């Protein structure tokens, strides 16, 4: 087997869509009649149309994986449909070599009334397996799905995770040259997701993989190149996966939340590393392992003499990943009735690549009741070389002893 075979060649592919349903149907009727009569369709945009995919090109060899990333509606799924041969491109050309399999929807062809076992045959047939092939593989499929106890139960009684398991177990039997995967691994429990990835890893050795995902750790883990799509265009394209992921994350910062509860305090000013955070400038970038200083100015009700201030850190998926609480004695932080100004310094931030938000919480005394809480007072993006699953990447040294 040579590793230099180009299996996928995409050249300047574009696709247009109509925003308006009635117009879209009308254009559809016109296109159908045009296609019957062999009339070449117009390349120009018609009224209400826009380019859902614009001028995308890449090549992919055996053993390589390309990640298509971008926010919802960036054109990733449309591009996948074109690559899968479901819809033709309006411009450009795609050349695919070998067997193509797509994991776009797991469990296609399932009928809820029928049992898991029967649906293995249905799903397998839709994916192009013959009856004999499935007969030969059925035990392996059931074992992989880990739901053998329920295999003769109607699929309508399955949980969505179980359906995904069964669907993936069938799809995992494919031995494609080109594999297209779209976001299907989002469901299912962690154990199964890892199992799926092991299977994909072993498939990847012999195939070219096109991977769409919103999970950057997954993309970082398996992709050798990425295309960051925005409004149909490739905003970033290249083999520096980290760079693509950084750009993806920076598109994703949202304004800091203004929502809070409690009226004993009012947040007046936040700065990160001496940069003032305001609606126009709501996040900063920070190199990994650099210091982060958080300066906060708060007006607190003057009856609260010794307020307590603490911070929480959340990742993009809104998981709480770290807290900051004061270690000094309670009396050291006093409220004299004017504005309370504090500065928190966090040395050598060990967060991994990604976007993080800071939550602020104030109580009337240490261990007392919360008088103020704001989920996101500021955000920062950690820039790093590597992309890892966990939010924390510990700073340490490994030595051979």
């Amino acid at each position, binding site marked *: 087997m040579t590793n230099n075979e180009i299996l996928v060649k995409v050249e300047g592919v574009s696709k247009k869509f109509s925003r308006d349903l009635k117009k879209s149907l009308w254009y559809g009727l016109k296109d159908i009649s045009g296609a019957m009569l062999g009339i070449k369709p117009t390349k120009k945009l018609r009224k209400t149309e826009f380019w859902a995919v614009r001028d995308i090109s890449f090549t992919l060899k055996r053993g390589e994986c390309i990640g298509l990333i971008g926010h919802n509606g960036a054109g990733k799924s449309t591009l996948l449909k*074109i690559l899968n041969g*479901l819809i033709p491109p*309006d411009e450009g050309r795609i050349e695919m070599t070998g067997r*193509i399999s797509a994991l776009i929807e797991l469990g296609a*062809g399932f009928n809820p009334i029928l049992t898991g076992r029967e649906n293995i045959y249905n799903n397998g*047939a839709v994916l192009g397996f013959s009856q004999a092939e499935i007969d030969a593989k059925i035990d392996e499929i059931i074992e992989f799905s880990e739901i053998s106890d329920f295999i003769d139960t109607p699929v309508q009684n399955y949980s969505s995770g179980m359906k995904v398991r069964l669907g993936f177990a069938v799809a995992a039997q494919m031995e494609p040259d080109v594999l297209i995967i779209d976001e299907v691994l989002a469901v299912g429990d962690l154990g199964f997701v890892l199992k799926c990835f092991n299977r994909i890893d072993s498939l990847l050795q012999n195939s070219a993989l096109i991977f769409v995902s919103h999970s950057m750790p997954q993309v970082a883990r398996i992709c050798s190149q990425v295309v960051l799509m925005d409004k149909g265009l490739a905003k970033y394209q290249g083999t520096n996966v980290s760079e693509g992921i950084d750009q993806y994350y920076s598109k994703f910062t949202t304004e800091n939340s203004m929502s809070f509860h409690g009226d004993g305090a009012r947040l007046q000013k936040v700065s990160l590393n001496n940069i003032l955070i305001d609606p126009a400038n709501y996040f900063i970038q920070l190199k990994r392992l650099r210091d982060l200083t958080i300066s906060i100015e708060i007006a607190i009700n003057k009856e609260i003499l010794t307020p307590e201030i603490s911070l929480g850190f959340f990742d993009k998926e809104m998981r709480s990943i770290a807290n900051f609480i004061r270690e000094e004695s309670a009396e050291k932080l006093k409220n004299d009735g004017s504005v309370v100004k504090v500065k928190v310094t966090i040395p050598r931030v060990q967060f991994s690549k990604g976007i993080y938000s800071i939550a602020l919480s104030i109580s009337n005394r240490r261990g007392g009741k919360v008088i103020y809480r704001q989920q996101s007072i500021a955000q920062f993006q950690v820039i790093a070389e590597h992309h890892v699953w966990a939010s924390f990447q510990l700073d340490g040294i490994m030595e051979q002893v």
Partner: protein
Amino acid sequence: MTTKNLKVIIYQPNASNAAFFASLLAIIKDIKPAHELAVRLFIRDIKAQYRQSFLGFFWVLIPPLLTAGLWIFLNNNRIVNVGETDIPYPLFVMIGTMLWQMFAESVNQPLASVKSNKSMLTKINFPREALLLSGFYTITFNLGPKLLVLAAACYAFDIQWNVSQLYFPLGILMVCLIGFAIGLILTPIGLLINDVARGIGVILPFAMYLTPVIYPAPTTTGYFAFLMQYNPVAILITASRGWLSGQVSSIPHEFMSVSSITLLFLLIGVLAYRISMPIITERFGG
């Protein structure tokens, strides 16, 4: 594994002048996998349908039996007078409604088959003709109980075995195919616009009364007789009924011409379906 055995697929903007020819080749190439998938889908649908039902087959028979029963009642009580028939009226109307039901189901089947698998169309690349084939297998399967009823009716009315009855299967085939061809040609538009399915639902029962299903074709001249003469379904049904009851012993030439036109339209329908499916898939979204 080397590149030399791997097939290369090219996707590019459609609509070249060779679209028809290329599509025809592609359809022929896909027949075998399409058939395999169609059989699977057919088994799936039938199993699911009957597993969730106690009366099962009964539902295939109810519509034609009710129609037949109603007209036998109306005619026996002289509420309406459909005129003289060559064979006993109950048998006449029974054969007629069964044949009409086969036709009506065939018209509805292609659109229904494709629509019920809509979600698959936007996600999976499989031979699209499989949906049509599985629809056709369903029609064939549903013929079973109808033929049993017809056999029982023939026995009850003491119809003698006759060589011309050998033509009857051909009649059934053409009745189904003309329905299927009509349904198929409407399918691409029907997938985009819901009005088509509704329109079929409204027009079909009405069309039954313009076809000699429950009354014999008028032999006199006049506007109505003219209509009967050029109603292709009327030609097929009349000939088929004649064969089964032993009244007609050859293939009428109108039957031949209607059949040829049906086959031609069926071919056009299959091609139109293949060519329009990508365009429809893109409008479905999802």
